[in-house]
């Protein structure tokens, strides 16, 4: 699996090198074709799929795997026989020659898909969703393609810039509209909005803490970055960097693993570098766009109400002049703007050329994050609910021993979640005094669990019922006794289970 990512990384580096080479020498031929490269089977095989064959077989039948390994060198249109293949498709002649059962392949594409799904199952991700892997690859290829197209074709580059500017302008339009409609006195205290904003942030944070998910933390951080970029309001770079460092410290698994710490350090370095280098500011073009939108809005408002907006004398002219000055570079500070304005010239001088490309990459990533972001909590919740449901499914399993084991493990999970038992201690040392008489009911169930888990005895239906009763009772008692924090946590788990 790691090899696969190395493959992707190598591919990316190659693409970048190619681009710079072409850019400097002025040729365009390889570049024109280069976007096809990720789809060429030869490269895909050598870069991405080499590892699938060499991976250690983990399960199922050893023989099938050895067949597959021996069939490595067969021509492209046959592959090793796998259980489930139609007998008609066996290539008998070749099979007899090689002493390995081989089947005719219907298309080249098929093998790769299977190799993918096989790789997925070998990664231990999930055998039931072989579809995900190709999807990932398609998305990745599409992103690569988009990136290369953007880098290669100046027109597309301009187009992207224009698109982004439109986006900014649209946000400005919204701002302007709100500004027109919801006018507030200048001396209005801001504590209420600050309070609401803080509340929203706190609730998000609380959700993340409750669910114990690191993914949500990531989302929060992404949201923070997006907020800054989208509204052009940048915290000072050092604030960003320290925010990120805090965030990474939160994300690292404890106890700290060496690899995780190294990765985090690399991540911190990369982000510090990026943030310090590309402080988000507002482009002159954006400014122009938003000014024009604002003008148009005020014109519309005029036409609707029939009353001219009460603009201070010369304000429109002042704005235009300011925008013009941005474009020409004669910038004068505008005191009522909080964000930093950077002219194109200034940028040209202060930043190396390639920073623009880096910026585009960053923005693309952000765009993807923006698309994914709203769905993430649902995805996380769904994944958890599915797991929980699977766990609950075991309660009704045909195999009663398995069911009893599963139920008892749920009981102990409840007890552990509420701090009534911990880790490696034998159950006898757990605090079973959560209510009068509970210990007396817990002890026989513990014996029952041991019998179910460690013996080969046949278990009876009423024993399962006894276990279920214990689970219900435990849930009831614990929910009644739990403090608000625990109750929230339990409620969250419960909503997953039901």
């Amino acid at each position, binding site marked *: 699996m790691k090899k696969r990512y190395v493959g992707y990384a190598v591919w990316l580096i190659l693409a970048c090198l190619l681009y710079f080479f072409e850019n400097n020498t002025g040729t365009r031929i390889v570049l024109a074709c280069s976007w096809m490269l990720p789809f060429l089977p030869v490269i895909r095989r050598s870069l991405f799929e080499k590892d699938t064959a060499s991976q250690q077989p983990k399960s199922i039948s050893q023989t099938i795997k050895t067949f597959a390994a021996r069939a490595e060198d067969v021509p492209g249109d046959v592959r090793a026989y796998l259980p489930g293949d139609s007998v008609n498709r066996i290539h008998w002649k070749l099979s007899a020659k090689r002493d390995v059962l081989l089947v005719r392949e219907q298309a080249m594409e098929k093998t790769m898909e299977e190799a993918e799904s096989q790789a997925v199952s070998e990664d231990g991700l999930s055998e039931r969703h072989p579809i995900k892997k190709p999807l990932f690859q398609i998305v990745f290829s599409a992103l690569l393609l988009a990136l290369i197209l953007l880098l290669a074709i100046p027109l597309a580059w301009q187009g992207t810039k224009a698109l982004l500017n439109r986006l900014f302008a649209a946000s400005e339009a919204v701002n302007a509209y709100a500004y027109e409609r919801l006018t507030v006195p200048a001396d209005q205290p801001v504590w209420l909005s600050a309070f609401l904003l803080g509340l929203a942030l706190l609730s998000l944070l609380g959700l993340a803490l409750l669910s114990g998910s690191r993914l949500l933390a990531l989302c929060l951080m992404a949201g923070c970055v997006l907020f800054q970029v989208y509204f052009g309001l940048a915290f000072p770079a050092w604030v960003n960097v320290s925010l990120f460092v805090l965030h990474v410290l939160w994300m690292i698994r404890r106890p700290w693993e060496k690899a995780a710490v190294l990765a985090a350090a690399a991540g911190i370095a990369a982000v510090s570098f990026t943030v310090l280098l590309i402080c988000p500011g507002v482009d002159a073009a954006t400014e122009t766009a938003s000014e024009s939108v604002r003008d148009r809005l005020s014109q519309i408002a005029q036409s609707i109400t029939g009353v001219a907006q009460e603009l201070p004398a010369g304000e429109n002219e002042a704005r235009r002049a300011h925008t013009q000055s941005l474009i020409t570079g004669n910038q004068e500070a505008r005191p009522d703007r909080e964000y930093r304005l950077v002219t194109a010239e200034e940028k040209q001088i202060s930043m190396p050329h390639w920073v623009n490309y880096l910026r585009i990459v960053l923005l693309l990533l952000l765009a993807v994050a923006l698309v994914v972001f709203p769905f993430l909590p649902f995805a996380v919740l769904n994944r*958890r609910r599915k*797991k*929980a449901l699977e*766990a609950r499914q075991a309660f009704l399993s045909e195999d009663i021993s398995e069911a009893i*084991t*599963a139920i008892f*493990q749920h009981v*102990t*999970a409840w007890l552990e979640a509420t701090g009534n038992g911990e*880790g*490696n201690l*034998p*159950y006898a040392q757990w605090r079973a005094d959560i209510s009068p008489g509970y210990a007396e009911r817990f002890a026989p169930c513990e014996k029952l*669990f*041991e*019998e179910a*888990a*460690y*013996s*080969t*005895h046949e278990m009876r239906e009423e024993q399962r019922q006894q276990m279920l009763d214990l689970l219900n009772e435990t849930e009831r008692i614990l929910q009644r006794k739990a403090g608000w924090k625990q109750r929230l946590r339990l409620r969250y*788990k419960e909503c*997953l289970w039901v």
Partner: protein
Amino acid sequence: MRPEMEKVLAEIEKVIAGKREVITKILTALLADGHVLLDDVPGVGKTTLAVAISRAVGLAYKRVQFTPDVLPSDLVGFSVYSKESGGFSYHPGALNDANLLLGDEINRASSKTQSALLEAMEERQVTVDGVTHPLQKPFLVIATQNSVGAVGTQFLPYAQVDRFLVRLSLGYPDYAAQMEMLKNRQDTNPIGQVQCVVRKDALISMQEQVRQVISKDVILDYITRLTMASRAHAAADVGISPRGALFLDRMSKAHAWMDGRDYVTGGDVQAVFRDVCAHRVLLKENCDKTADDVLNDVLKTVENPDRHRRGLLKQ
């Protein structure tokens, strides 16, 4: 506890009071068909205990008091020329017809005598002059070694200690037990009152039942993880040997059987872990921990099988 073992225990308790726990452990080792090493000071009733066990279970009892001049031939027997037959005839030694052998102060024996005994313990047979003589079944050795006046003695080396299933220690009796003992011994020796409550062949069939006890894969996995963790422990020079793991499994089975079950649980393994493994851990030099500390650490860090299974379901 199984009723028959309860009866045996009651008989033994007639002579030794207040040592229920240790006696149970020795009986468990007997069921697991393993040998016991008692590490004790003199005079706490090791001999009495061995005699009582052999009487209660109907075993043939032999005792060897080891001194530096006890020779291997005293244990395994020797061949002697006989004029009538004109050939060599075999004279059995102390091991040959014993079911329960008390090897007292084994650390005083010379190393070749020790090794002769330990070989017999492992193989359950003795070979003299190329002829192999099987030993009695069951064959249990209770060896004692004491550290009082140990100058000039040879403590068992690690390789030989490893062959004992458990190492136990009786220790001094508490106030009540000693008072009771003194009262009991006023006129008679109660050892005569111990009756045979379990026959030898019944014991053999119990041992067979113990062998039939089931250890599922989770348990074997737990044992393996325990032993591996002991080998990786920072304070341990040598951890639990594979034989130790084997013995741990066997002792857990006996413990489970004593508890009236035919399956081993994680609790069984934990219950016998210290007794089976404490003498198998060699500590590093300049280390301020004891073997028990190491084992406690191992028990604490290694996830027990219940939890290990649950870990798979954890959300």
